[in-house]
Every structure is written in structure tokens, then in C-alpha cells.
């Protein structure tokens, strides 16, 4: 087994390293592989998270030059859930009397509705793009393109479309009795428009992932199913669906997480006051220099998302994690 590798001088140390790695047992090998990833994440993600957590244990600094207030233990968390922090937020964290005006509920409603619709539409579009037809590359481009529009732009775009002085969108929807003539003043209407906009924007995310999943399915299996007598629907039900399930699961998971963190489009399109998402609360308190409060809401949001995803794992019996 002659090899010319050794004749390239710079490759020699590289080769020594790969040799070393190759000698490791599977478990050692895996940890070696994961170490750079975790190193990067430790510095740029975990450390800030820990830092933020520490921040959440401190009171806000109201007057002192030091941006961090004194240590307060978990009082911020207690206050958040007992409504004590609502004063510092444009909208209450959770309020049963005004469910649609409280951050938690608006966020959950938004995420639930938009992710479900995006999944269905995304699947439908992915199935279309999975077929062979002339001009498919162009249709693919079109259906994926909304994802490429920066949030600032697409938020403004939809804002203008439904802004009654500029666009005609609200007139149409108003005519259909779906929204009032000035939708951006009502949380409900704004939420609806936000969901429409979000669907337009993020369905491509689902499309791309599902499409990639569909394309990775072994075509032989369709032949087998066809010969076994499966109709189009049955092939979808028994072959396509179970085989894209893993990637579909990941796609929904991340969409769900993203949706629960929604902020940018709200800020641009309807304003955090009208549709107060959890992230809106984080940002607005952050910008007011209520760092303790902001960190507390951030952590609570993360915990909430964690809870939702755990529920999702249990519900789908996912093997993802």
C-alpha cells in the first residue's frame, strides 16, 4: 500500500493527526469530533447564557452607573409570575382577564397557529416541488424566495399592504368581515395579519427542509409500494410520511422554537405594543436598561420553549433527542 501522502511535507502533521484520531475508540472519537463545536458554543453561547442567568438574579439598576443592580436571588422570577414585573413591560406577562394582550398567550397562539399552517402548506408545496415538471427550477425558486426577504423589508411590505392609507389589503379583508378597517390598532387583527405575513415568509423554510427529506427517500420503495397496490394517498401515508418524519420533526421543532421567539416582524409590522410577544418584552426591557428583568424574561421564555419542545417530543415520540 504505497502512498504518496508522505511526499507532501505539509500533509505530514495533518496525517499524523488523522492517524491519531483514527486510532481512537468510537466514544473517544465522537468526543474529539464534538469538542470544536462545544468549544465554539461554550464561548459564544453557553458563557453568555450563564452570564445572562446571573444577570437575572440581580435587581435592575435604576440610578447607579453600574448597569447591574444588587443581587436579588430569585425575586425577579417570583415577581414575573406574580405580575410584579408587569409594570416594567408594555404588556403583562400573563393575564387571564386580557388573554390576547398578555405576552405569553399571544406568543403561544401565534406560534401554534402559524407553525401548523406553515407545516401543512410547506408539505403541500414540497410535494409539488418534488415532482418532475418543466420549469420546476423556476417554481422552486419562486416558492423559496420569500425566505430570502429580510424581515425589515417584508414586515414593511406587509405593513404597507395592510395599511389603509397605502395598501388595499385591509380593505379586502375588511370587506370579507375578517378584520376591522384599521387592523393595526387591534391585537386580534394584527395577530391575524402577522400570521398571514409569517406564513408567507417562513413557509419556504418548511418547504426546503421537507423537500430535502422527500428527495432523500429511496425511490425503490415507491416501486415496491406501487406493486403492492398502494394508491397515491397510501404511498404518501405509508412510505413518504414515515420516511420524512425525522426531518419533518426537526423542521417543526425549529420552526416552533423560532415562532416562540418571534420579535423582528412584530416590531416592524405591527409594533410590540399591539402584539406583545415574549421576545418583545425581552427587548423592550433590555432597551430600557432593566437588565435584570430582561434576563429574567429571557430565561423564562427559554424555559417555556423548553417545556413546549419537551411536550412536542413526548407527543411525537420523537427520536430527535
Amino acid at each position, binding site marked *: 500500500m504505497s502512498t504518496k501522502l508522505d511526499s507532501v511535507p505539509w500533509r505530514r502533521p495533518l496525517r499524523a493527526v488523522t492517524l491519531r484520531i483514527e486510532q481512537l475508540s468510537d466514544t473517544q472519537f465522537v468526543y474529539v469530533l464534538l469538542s470544536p463545536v462545544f468549544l465554539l458554543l461554550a464561548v459564544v453561547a453557553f458563557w453568555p447564557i450563564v452570564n445572562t442567568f446571573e444577570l437575572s438574579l440581580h435587581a435592575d439598576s435604576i440610578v447607579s452607573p453600574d448597569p447591574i443592580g444588587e443581587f436579588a436571588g430569585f425575586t425577579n422570577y417570583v415577581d414575573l409570575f406574580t405580575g410584579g414585573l408587569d409594570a416594567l413591560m408594555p404588556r403583562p406577562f400573563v393575564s387571564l382577564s386580557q388573554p390576547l394582550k398578555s405576552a405569553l398567550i399571544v406568543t403561544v397562539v401565534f406560534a401554534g397557529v402559524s407553525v401548523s399552517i406553515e407545516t401543512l402548506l410547506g408539505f403541500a408545496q414540497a410535494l409539488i416541488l418534488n415532482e418532475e415538471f418543466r420549469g420546476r427550477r423556476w417554481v422552486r425558486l419562486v416558492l423559496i424566495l420569500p425566505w430570502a426577504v429580510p424581515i425589515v423589508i417584508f414586515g414593511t411590505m406587509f405593513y404597507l399592504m395592510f395599511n389603509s392609507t397605502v395598501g388595499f389589503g385591509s380593505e379586502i379583508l375588511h370587506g370579507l368581515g375578517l378584520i376591522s378597517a384599521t387592523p393595526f390598532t387591534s391585537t386580534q387583527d394584527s395577530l391575524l395579519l402577522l400570521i398571514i405575513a409569517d406564513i408567507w415568509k417562513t413557509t419556504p423554510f418548511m418547504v426546503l427542509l421537507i423537500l430535502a427529506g422527500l428527495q432523500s427517500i429511496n425511490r425503490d420503495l415507491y416501486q*415496491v409500494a406501487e406493486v403492492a397496490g*398502494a394508491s397515491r394517498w397510501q404511498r404518501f401515508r405509508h412510505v413518504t410520511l414515515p420516511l420524512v418524519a425525522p426531518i419533518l420533526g426537526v423542521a417543526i421543532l425549529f420552526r416552533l422554537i423560532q415562532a416562540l421567539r418571534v420579535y423582528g416582524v412584530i416590531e416592524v409590522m405591527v409594533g410590540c405594543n399591539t402584539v406583545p410577544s415574549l421576545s418583545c418584552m425581552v427587548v423592550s426591557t433590555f432597551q430600557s436598561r432593566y437588565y435584570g428583568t430582561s434576563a429574567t424574561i429571557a430565561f423564562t421564555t427559554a424555559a417555556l420553549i423548553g417545556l413546549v419542545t419537551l411536550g412536542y417530543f413526548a407527543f411525537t415520540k420523537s427520536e430527535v433527542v
Partner: protein
Amino acid sequence: MGEIQLNDVTKRYGDVTAVDNMNLDLDDGEFICLVGPSGCGKSTTMEIIAGLTMPTDGSILISKQDVTNLPPKDRGIAMVFQNIALFPHMDVYDNISFGLRLRNYEKEEIDRRVERASDIVQLEGMLDRMPEEMSGGQRQRVAIARAIVRNPDVFLMDEPLANLDAKLRVHMRTELQRLHKELETTIVYVTHDQAEAMTMSDRIAVIDSGELQQIDPPLTCYNEPSNMFVAGFIGSPSMNFVEGTITEHGFEAENFDVEFEPSHLDVSLGDDITLGVRPEDVYPIDAVHSLARPTEEIAAVSDVLEPMGDEVFVYLKLEDDVQTQIEETVSNDQLLMSVEPDSLIQEDEPVTVVLDRSKVHLFDSVSGTAICHGLTPAISQR
């Protein structure tokens, strides 16, 4: 029910012609083996029958109905794929019952059938295994069970036993035959195992380069091959071919002659002729008494001996200085002979052999077409 007819079916992939103007006419309930060299178009033919591949040309009829444009699911077929293709996300039970579940069979009926099928393929305790947890042969058996669990009009089986051991293969063969009798289904079967083709099929279809060469009952193909290709392909080890010419004494090759009266055959003097004889029809001279009509004696030297257990293959050199080329098809200076294992022949000693006249085949060297099978007394008479 179950008749299959291919009319002028051609399938081309770019410049590769996988199936070339194929005409097949299979009766209902027939068991047909497709045989032919690797890449000759057997699987493609199967796929065309199944509707998985659209023929470039021609039409397909199943049960007298034109199905050329019908999707596979409406053709009433079950198929064992050459590449097995189990559903990786289903366990064995689900794989086997897939077709039944699609048709909404009762749970009990499904259970009953799956049990029976898994019994036949001897996978009883493995119903809850996933495909990836099985050996190659086990997977292939799941694929078989998946097909036989249904009652289609036509079974298509593409080398269903390729990965099974000899004993299991014998067992499966019997089971498939029994099933065939029971269901009276038409079966189209691809196999590379000569024994399988010989014992199971009603007729064998021999294909070469996408073209049908002969379709006949197994023994007919064995004993009366329609051309040199079939003669050489059917039977293992292969038939010996020796090139020669027609002289007025009969057949004359470089190293031996076989005498007969050429005028009794459709040949002219000087024609290039190939003589074919199967290894088991070559006899050492001391067995000559068991032959009714042996040919003239042929002098040879034994070269390589291949003991097979129940028989021994002896590679004979007709000329002294040649190197035995075990796998060559036509070689004028060597012969393969099969003898009993208790034969006393040793390597590298002179052996005199004779051929059984009644088992000698003559072919046109140019077209390969058979001229005659067996030099009957009438022909031999000079």
C-alpha cells in the same frame, strides 16, 4: 386470468437497448423462468410487466387486457425485487402485511396470512425485527413473504433465492411450487440457478442481449437448444463446442472427426459447423460398452481434475502443448468431461474418450442456429 402477452416490447435507455423487440405469450397459470446472462434484460422485462418501467415501444397485455398504460397497482401482480427493497421503517410483520393492510383486510386474516407466509420462509420468531437487524438471506425471505402473502394474478420473482443457502433454497423451491399449484397463479421467475430453472418451470425463456432466444420446456431447451447460445447457456458446466467443417465424411475438426452422411442434413460440403456435446456425454473409452452408438475414439490428455463430490470434472487437452482455458466457450482443442467420483482418471495422463452419438449437436458456426440434435442412426448411416 393471468395470461401475459408482450407484443414487440422494446426498452431503450439512451443507446442501451435493454429489451429488444420482445414477444412473449404466457398462459394463465404457467411457471416461466427467464434466464440469460447478467445484463441481458430480465429485470427490465419484469419491470415492464409490472408497470414500473414504461416500454419505449410495444404493448403489454395481462389477462387479455391491455395494461400498457395502467399503473402497477391495477395490474394484479406481486413482485419480489432483485434488490429486495424492504421498507426500512417497518418491522418484518409490517413489511409482510403491507399489501394486505393497504386493502383493509381484517386483522385476523392478516395475522393468519402473515403467519403462514413467515412460516413458509422460516422466519417465524422474527416478525418484530427491523430489516437492518437481519442477515442478507433473512431479508430476502421477508421480500418473498411479502409477495406470497397476497393472491395476485401474476407473481414476478427476480432471483428470489439468490441469497439463500442450498437447503433453504430447495425448501423454498418446493414451497413456491406448491403455492403455484394451489393458487394457479402465473409466475415469472428469474434465476441464475440452472437447477431451479430446470425443476420449477413449465417453460424457460432464454434471453440474450434483450432478445428472446428460445422459449420451451426445460428439457427441450436442454436437449434441443435452438441455437449455440442456448446450448451453451443451459447446462452447467457448459456444453463443449468444437469448430469444424463439413466434409463428405461428415464433421471434421482439427483434432478429431465424427463420421456421418452430410447429405442427410441441411448442410453443404465445406460449411463451417460447430459440434456441441455436453460434458456428461463424453465417456472414457472403458465406458464405451454402455453406449449404444459411440463416436470414433478421440485421443486426449487429462489436464485439470475438479472433484465436485457427486461427480468429477475432467478437463481434457486434445493437443499436448495447450494451456487449459477453463472458461472458454469455443475451444477447438479441449473438452470437458464429467465422470463418476470413483473414476480412476488422474491428472496429466492420456485418456481416450468417445462421445455419445445420440447426444451430439451440430450448429451452423456462423448463425449459431442448430442443425440437428443427436446423430440418429439414419443420419449416421453412410
